[in-house]
C-alpha cells in the first residue's frame, strides 16, 4: 500500500489540467480515488459521507489546481486537501459510528495478516476477530481527529512518517508522538473490552 505514484506523470497531468484539459484531471481522479477513499472512509466510518466528501475533495482540487505551483507532489497536495476537509467535516458532524466488518473486501481472506490472525495458534482468534474489529473501529472513533488521521495514514495506508508530516504540515517528531499516544489509547480501549 506504499506504492507512491510517479511524480513526473502526475506533474504532466497537472500541467495539462492547468492548460485547460479536463480529461487529464479525470485520469488523476481515477488514479487517486481508491487511495483517498480509504483515507476518508477510515476517518468518517460512513460510506455515504465518504462519497460526498470525496466528490467535494476532487471538486475543490479542480477549482484550486490553477494555483498549484508544484512545490510539493500532487499526491501530497491532494491528501492535504482530503485530510483538512475530512477533519472540518467531522468537527461539524460530531460523533457517529456506522462501520461494519461486513464492508470488508473479499480479498481480506488472502491477506497474510488475516491468515495469521485467524490461525489456530493466535489467541486473537478465540476472542472473535469480527467483534474485535468492531471494537477497534469504535476505539478509532474515540480518538481525536488529528490522532485518527495519523493512525489511518500510517497503520492502515502504510504511509511513511515523512510523508504524513508533509501532508499534515507538522514535524516527523509530532507524527511519531501522535502515533505513540494513539496506539496507547487504542490499546486501553480494547483492554477495557476484554
Amino acid at each position: 500500500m506504499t506504492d507512491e505514484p510517479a511524480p513526473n506523470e502526475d506533474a504532466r497531468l497537472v500541467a495539462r489540467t492547468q492548460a485547460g484539459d479536463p480529461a487529464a484531471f479525470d485520469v488523476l481522479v481515477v488514479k487517486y480515488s481508491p487511495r483517498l477513499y480509504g483515507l476518508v472512509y477510515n476517518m468518517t466510518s460512513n460510506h455515504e459521507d465518504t462519497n460526498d466528501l470525496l466528490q467535494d475533495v476532487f471538486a475543490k482540487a479542480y477549482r484550486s489546481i490553477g494555483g498549484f505551483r508544484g512545490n510539493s507532489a500532487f499526491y501530497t497536495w491532494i491528501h492535504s486537501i482530503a485530510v483538512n476537509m475530512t477533519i472540518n467535516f467531522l468537527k461539524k458532524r460530531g460523533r457517529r459510528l456506522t462501520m461494519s466488518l461486513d464492508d470488508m473486501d473479499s480479498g481480506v481472506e488472502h491477506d497474510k495478516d488475516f491468515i495469521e490472525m485467524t490461525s489456530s495458534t493466535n489467541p486473537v482468534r478465540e476472542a472473535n476477530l469480527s467483534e474485535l474489529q468492531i471494537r477497534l473501529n469504535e476505539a478509532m472513533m474515540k480518538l481525536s481527529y488529528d490522532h485518527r488521521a495519523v493512525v489511518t495514514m500510517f497503520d492502515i495506508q502504510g504511509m511513511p512518517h515523512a510523508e504524513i508530516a508533509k501532508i499534515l504540515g507538522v514535524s516527523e517528531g509530532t507524527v511519531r508522538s501522535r502515533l505513540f499516544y494513539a496506539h496507547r489509547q487504542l490499546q486501553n480501549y480494547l483492554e477495557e473490552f476484554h
Partner: protein
Amino acid sequence: MSLDDQTLSTLLRLKRFEQPPPGYFDDFLREFQSRQRKELLRRPVWSLAWDRLEAFWFHTFTVARLSYATASLAVLCIAGALTFNMLQNPGSSVRASAEILAANATHAPVVQPAMQVASAPRARTINAALSPQIRIPDGMLDASVAPVASGQHPRYILDTRPVSYEPPFSF
C-alpha cells in the same frame, strides 16, 4: 488479554480491506463529472452572462474589438494631453480675461448715472445725440457708427423693412 503493538498494527492493517461496493469507482468519475456540470449551472447569473458576453465579444468581433480598442486609446491620449496642458498652465484663460478687464477699466468713460443704462452701441449713438456731454472712448465705437453732428437730425436705421414693403404673395 492485552494487545501488544504488533497485534494492534495487524488489526489496523486489516482495515484497508474495508472497501466500497463493487463498481463504486467506475461510477465515481461519472458522478464527479455530473456534479461539475451541475455546479456550472449553479453559478451566479452575472458570471454566466459575463462568460457569454466574453465569448461573443472576443470570438465574433475581432476586428471591431481592435478598432474600439484603438479608438478608446486615442480618446484616452487626447484627454491625457488636455489634462497635462491644463495642469502646466493653470488658470491661463482666467488670467487673460482679467487683464482685458483691467485695461478697459483704465479707459473707462465718465458716464452720468442717468445714462448708464445705455450699453449697446446703437443705444449709445442715440443717447449721445440727445446728450452731447457724454465722452465715449474711441475704441468703444465701431466704424459704422459715425458721431452725430450738432444741429443735424438723427438718422435712425431700422433693422428690418416695414411690413408694407413686403411683396404680396397671397392672391
